[in-house]
């Protein structure tokens, strides 16, 4: 039986104007990735300063310099509609790569922050 599950992966941004790359592995019993969402503990920094590339199974879904604000949803968005719809991607080898780039923006002052990548997945109940 298939059931919905949400996965969260975190990266830490500790230096201004830096690039942080990390690769995460999805559970083997995940069969589809339906959506993606990014959030942060300091939303304003992510909103104004962040861009990222996201790959799933070595396939690029969002290229370099894709602004994080385009993948964020505020609390005005209904919880079930907050994820960016990928349309049910097969996870393949299950590797999810994020290459996050922090860039100065005149409206913010840098301080270390966390970026969380959420994936809306569908998994098999039992292997």
């Amino acid at each position, binding site marked *: 039986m298939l059931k919905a599950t949400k996965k969260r992966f975190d990266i830490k941004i500790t230096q201004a104007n830096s690039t942080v790359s990390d690769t995460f592995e999805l559970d083997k019993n995940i069969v589809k990735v339906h959506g993606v969402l990014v959030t942060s503990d300091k*939303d304003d920094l992510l909103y*104004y300063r962040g861009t990222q590339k996201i790959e799933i199974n070595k396939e690029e879904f969002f*290229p370099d310099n894709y602004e994080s*604000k*385009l993948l*964020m949803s*505020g*609390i005005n*968005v209904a919880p079930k509609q907050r994820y960016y719809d990928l349309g049910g991607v097969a996870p393949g080898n299950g590797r999810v790569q994020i290459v996050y780039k922090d860039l100065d923006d*005149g409206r913010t002052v840098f301080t270390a922050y966390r970026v969380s990548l959420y994936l809306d997945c569908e998994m098999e109940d039992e292997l």
Partner: protein
Amino acid sequence: MMKEGVIITKISIKRQGERKHFQIKLPNDTKFIIGVEYGGRLISKSDAIKFAVAPIAAPTIEPTALGKEYPPLDAGTVEERPRGLFKRNQLVGELKLQSSEESNWFYSTDVFVADANLSYGDFSNAGFNVNDYTHGNKRTEEIVKVDAESTIIQGWYLDALGKTQKVDINYEVTIYVWINVEE
């Protein structure tokens, strides 16, 4: 099989009233242009820039703390706001795109960065500051449908932000062109 992709183009604006002509090169296997969206980044910090400061909702009700009495029932009543309180959004520029194959622009928009009246959407005024990054809507591309046989898009951008504030503002506009490619 068709697959979606996005081409990202950045335009750098440095002078007030600056006009930029640019081209966006699409991959050869592009079939259609299916959507356009934009974003931006302020590069130089200037006191003249007030457009991005999000409006702050003034709390009218004290948050109820433990041990305190609940506010009276009519405390949450929404007062009618004077019309003068509404602010117009700061226009950042104008953006137009044209496919080399077709006549006329297929996309034309006024570029805004922030919604200056976002806080008026929260009638509770409960003290939770309203900002684009907390209360913003999910952003989606504007849908267009244009043949991409020529694989070149001509673009035109005109600064309005520096012009209205009469100061040179250094910022970047990012244009996202969503395409359908054949696998």
